């Protein structure tokens, strides 16, 4: 985190779900922290370039706290994000900091809680929750700030497969219901690809490709990067290289079956 690369001007689009994939140590974490101003405001260092939002604000001049209503980040380890002694207070926390009136806080908590389906654990302490529940609480506590963009840094890393799937489904629902842009940095491509619309590929601190999911998956960069490619991808990639398969490599199983018919 102490070395920064040139941050190129990143324009943020509305209503998509980005999957950011890359080799470990490529700069994903750093880039994410550039997006809400943690870099350069919290982590200082050599920083060049600008991150601009659609409404003209940028991450150097606007304080992080103000940006938190536009861009929310959910980090990898849910335990280290839960700071209150119970779930309800946890969700209220960000709104408390923003000085939002109590009535409004109650209303937003209700919405956020129903969307993430955590009504049954409102009075529990953070360490009493399972990993999946903790991650949901973390997501709820950011959603409640009503950001237009939600960024998640490897949200399913510490979860078991079923929980991971549920969280990704949840994120998809959130995207649909709330019309927000979701950017996810992930290793578990098999779970994420079926929902992804855009992909940003990174290597050694640079963005080497950014485009439509289908285009990126079928490209050379995706093939050569050391990513945890889904089994479906590997299978169809081999068939494609043997010139037996000419269509686009499928991102999901239904797509795979369709392409074979």
């Amino acid at each position: 985190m102490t070395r920064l690369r040139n941050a190129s001007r990143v324009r943020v689009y509305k209503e998509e779900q980005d999957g950011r994939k890359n080799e470990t140590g490529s700069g994903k974490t750093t880039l994410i922290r550039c997006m809400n101003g943690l870099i350069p405001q919290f982590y200082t260092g050599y920083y060049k370039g600008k991150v601009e939002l659609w409404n003209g604000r940028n991450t150097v001049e606007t304080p992080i706290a103000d940006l938190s209503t536009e861009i929310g980040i959910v980090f990898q380890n849910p335990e280290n994000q839960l700071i209150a002694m119970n779930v309800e207070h946890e969700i209220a926390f960000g709104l408390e900091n923003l000085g939002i009136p109590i009535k409004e806080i109650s209303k937003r908590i209700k919405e956020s809680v129903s969307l993430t389906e955590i009504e049954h654990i409102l009075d529990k302490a953070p360490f009493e929750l399972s990993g999946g529940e903790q991650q949901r609480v973390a997501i709820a506590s950011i959603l409640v700030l009503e950001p237009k963009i939600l960024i998640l840094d490897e949200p399913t890393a510490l979860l078991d497969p079923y929980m991971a799937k549920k969280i990704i489904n949840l994120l998809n629902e959130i995207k649909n219901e709330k019309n927000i842009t979701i950017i996810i940095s992930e290793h578990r491509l098999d779970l994420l690809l079926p929902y992804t619309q855009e992909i940003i590929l990174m290597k050694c601190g640079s963005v080497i490709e950014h485009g439509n999911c289908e285009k990126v998956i079928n490209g050379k960069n995706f093939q050569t990067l050391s990513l945890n490619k889904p089994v479906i991808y590997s299978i169809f990639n081999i068939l494609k290289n043997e010139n037996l398969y000419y269509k686009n490599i499928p991102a999901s199983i239904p797509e795979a079956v369709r392409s074979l018919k």
Partner: protein
Amino acid sequence: MTSEIPIIMMRDIDYIYPNGTEALKKINLNISKGELVGIMGKNGAGKTSLIRTLNGLIKPTQGNIYIENENISSKSIANLSEKVGIIFQNPFHQLFANSVEDEIKFSLKSISLDKEKIQIRTDHILNQFDLEKYRTRSPLNLSGGESKKLAIASIICRDPDIIVFDEPTLGQDAKEIEFFINLIKNERKRSKTIIIITHNIEFAYEYLPRTILMADGQIIADGPTKEVLNNEFLISNTSLVLPQIQQFYFALLEQGFQEVVDKMSKTEMINYLRNILKKRYSKI
């Protein structure tokens, strides 16, 4: 290849935490020498408690464990850790030395070897794990992947007969996982018994011959991976999902692809599709 008496035998193992939680209930298990076994299950099912009994970190409240046909209840952790090496999930729970070399030497301290032999082993291990270039670097300055390698190296250098991994593929990219797979292949060639706790279904399906499924402190399945990971009931009780290949198999079956076979490996699936596509093009 396998010897007569299993290298690990667990009989009616119970473990209750001091605060009353039942972590292990009536565990019965045999693992033969040289086997490669996966342990899977929901978080909190008892997987980590189970492996902790193997090197004495946890002493069962009931039952007996035999390693190499000896009851281990009276043995100390230091003693058992020479035979059973456990590599835990978070490398930063153990890295502390001034240099990568010192980190390895620390692990070798408790094994009675003379200075020369320690140096030879250290050099050998640094080479084997491609960590030679970091020899003098502080272990805290390594990347996530490299520090995981170092954590593994610091147990393998002790040459235990039984090696246990807790989530070795977590946070690793494809290259690092490949390195890990080669590592366990090598260790198996040396007749080491390997146990892996993992959530990585694709990895387990492809590389682990045998899988033990746990739920609520009990073993609910124990058998060939391809059997165990294909049972819908078991999968839903252990918070897992079907491996992608199996999902693909079911989807194909549903859509009328009659000749698709259950429980194929990746290569078999590729061959199957190859045949279909070749037939299709030969018709054109």
